[in-house]
């Protein structure tokens, strides 16, 4: 029942939007209303997981949800609901015509479905199929308005994304090869639990090779440097609601895939091998993102590079033992909430100023005071200031690093975080103050659309001041899975 609500409602919404021709406003409202069903299912699922259950469904346990899946399901359904309420198709005037709205409703729901399937599939092959399908469904939405820039961004995205993901499939095949050699052909061989169960007797060298392919493949989707080049283009050129989904949760889903594989490979060869690779890629992403942030001229690209920075941090955290995994997962949740809110706010700014250049949007405080307030709060959050959740998770992550005896590494990380902080605050300053260009109307419109942003800020502050018991219990469950 939970899985039906979770996976079938997005499909139902997509089918409705696809079948109703031409697009009508009630379709948008219906999709928005339906988006609460997966969110409710996710909460229900998490509650059951917290009681110690592992939920499964279907022949051969086709779907399976443990603590790790539950966390991701929560994140995905939350952001999907945000994007359904704030995306094109509800407001009267949002710069999109009926065909574009319809296509947004169809593909954003399919996109949500593929992400939910990726994090609940038991079979790592099916997980791969779902992740590959996220590329296809989201690529369709990048050029919603066809411009040279959006066509370019979508091409880079689908080509680099598909090729990268294909490499992850090579890794999956290699691991399956290892398994089949040992135990013979079995339908359940690619089930994650079977892989984990037989990992200790699998062949080291082949699994290591498989992990390298998997890391490059899913790392491409996660936006890890040096495979990140598609990310700033795609995230800055897509409609803001799609950017929110891609930046907020698609990266998290890719990290999830990497973590699933890391657990299997760790069980076979010990954590040292995967940790070294994750630290290398994480640190490189952090460094490239921090220094690129300094020279940013476009605020959506600035948010995209900040996503690369935070993905890098999350990867580092995964390599720092149980404490690090706890911090990394908390960081992932915080980043999901913040970044999806920020892209939706950036969409509001872009709609008003008709520009994504930082230099062309001064005076936000005067033209859109409430949006500006939330935007500033979000920027402080991604820069890592208290009292927001990201501060706590970054703090926990650095502490885990020192506890793991990686003092030097943490020193470098702190320096890079300071660089990113200075860059972000400088850009924010240029956006908030100054004189707005003359023709820009002053005053907020459609204030109700800011309510979700308010909710996000509340969640961030709560996560920054305290760690609610359900959250910490869920995170502890993940640590139990990932670092036994």
């Amino acid at each position, binding site marked *: 029942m939970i899985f039906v609500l979770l996976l079938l409602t997005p499909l139902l919404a997509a089918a409705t939007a696809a079948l109703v021709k031409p697009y009508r406003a009630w379709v948008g409202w219906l999709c928005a209303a339906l988006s609460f069903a997966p969110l409710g299912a996710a909460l229900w699922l998490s509650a059951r997981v917290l009681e110690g259950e592992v939920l499964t469904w279907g022949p051969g346990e086709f779907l399976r949800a443990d603590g790790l899946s539950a966390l991701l399901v929560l994140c995905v359904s939350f952001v999907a609901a945000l994007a359904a309420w704030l995306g094109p198709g509800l407001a009267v005037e949002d710069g999109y015509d009926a065909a574009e709205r319809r296509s947004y409703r169809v593909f954003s729901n399919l996109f949500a479905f593929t992400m939910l399937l990726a994090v609940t599939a038991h*079979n790592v092959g099916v997980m791969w199929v779902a992740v590959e399908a996220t590329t296809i469904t989201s690529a369709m939405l990048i050029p919603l308005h066809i411009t*040279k820039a959006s*066509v370019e961004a979508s091409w880079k995205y689908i080509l680099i994304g*598909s090729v990268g993901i*294909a490499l992850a499939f090579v890794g999956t095949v*290699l691991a399956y090869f290892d398994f*089949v050699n040992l135990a013979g052909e079995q339908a359940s061989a690619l089930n994650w639990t079977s892989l984990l169960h037989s990992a200790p007797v699998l062949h080291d060298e082949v699994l290591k*090779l498989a992990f390298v392919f998997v890391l490059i493949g899913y790392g491409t989707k996660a936006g890890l440097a040096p495979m990140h080049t598609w990310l700033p283009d795609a995230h800055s050129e897509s409609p803001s609601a799609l950017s929110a989904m891609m930046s907020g949760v698609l990266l998290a889903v890719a990290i999830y895939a990497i973590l699933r594989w890391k657990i299997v490979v760790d069980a076979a060869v010990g954590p040292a091998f995967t940790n070294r690779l994750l630290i290398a890629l994480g640190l490189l992403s952090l460094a490239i993102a921090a220094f690129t942030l300094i020279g940013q001229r476009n605020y959506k690209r600035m948010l995209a590079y900040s996503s690369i920075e935070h993905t890098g941090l999350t990867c580092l955290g995964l390599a720092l033992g149980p404490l690090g995994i706890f911090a990394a997962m908390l960081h992932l949740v915080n980043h999901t909430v913040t970044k999806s809110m920020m892209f939706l706010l950036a969409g509001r700014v872009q709609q008003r100023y008709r520009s994504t250049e930082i230099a062309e949007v001064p005076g936000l405080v005067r033209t859109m005071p409430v949006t500006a307030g939330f935007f500033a709060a979000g920027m402080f959050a991604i820069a890592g200031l208290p009292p927001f959740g990201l501060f706590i998770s970054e703090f926990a992550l650095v502490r885990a690093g020192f506890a793991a005896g990686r003092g030097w590494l943490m020193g470098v990380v702190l320096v890079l975080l300071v660089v990113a902080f200075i860059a972000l605050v400088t850009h924010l300053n240029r956006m908030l103050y100054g004189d707005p260009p003359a023709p820009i109307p002053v005053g907020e419109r459609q204030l109700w659309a800011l309510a979700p942003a308010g909710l996000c800020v509340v969640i961030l502050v709560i996560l920054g001041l305290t760690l609610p018991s359900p959250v910490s219990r869920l995170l502890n469950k993940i640590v139990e899975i990932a670092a036994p």
Partner: protein
Amino acid sequence: MNSLFSQLAVLGSSLTLIFGLMLLWHRSVHAYTTAFAWQSVVLAGIVAVVAYFERDPELYFVAAMLLWLKAWFIPRLLRRMEEPLGAEQELQPYVNTATSLLISGLLVLFAYAVCRPLVALSHLPTRAGMPLALGLIFVSLFVIASRKKALTQVIGFLMLENGIALLAVLGTYGIPLVVEIGVFLDLLLGFMVMQLFVYRIHETFESIDVEQLGRLRH
């Protein structure tokens, strides 16, 4: 009996690799499509051979799907794209033909080096073909990175998928059917989206040269 099986596997894998290498010295989309279609026929043939020797009826089904999708349906769509786009040839790739061939040779050698633990571990009669499959994967990656026309990149991607399918069938006699069907579906949809985007690039930029796609920086 088994030696015939392994000889057929190696012969087939070599043929697929050679069809992959053809992208390096041909210039026209027509030749690329032909190479891809024949490569897919050989791949389907290998799958059928494995099905025959292993008495696995599931694999006959996979071979039939391969034949339909990759040797008939996708080449047909590619042929249709030749009309508006075929005039643009791969005249000046980032890497010239001679160097490309040299690099590809090195990539195949590299694939042999990477595959050593795999071949040593496996006891399947098809194992000798695995380095060639990985070689095809590497060569296809090189094609995607070194060629300028969007359509060439798409065909490189299709060949990359063929290389992975070959690796899977040689190393494991095929992945579970549910995954296989998912992969087919992804490939079909992915190709159609790519095709749509190639047309869009053509409409917006009036050419399918990806060198023009350099507006978005920093």
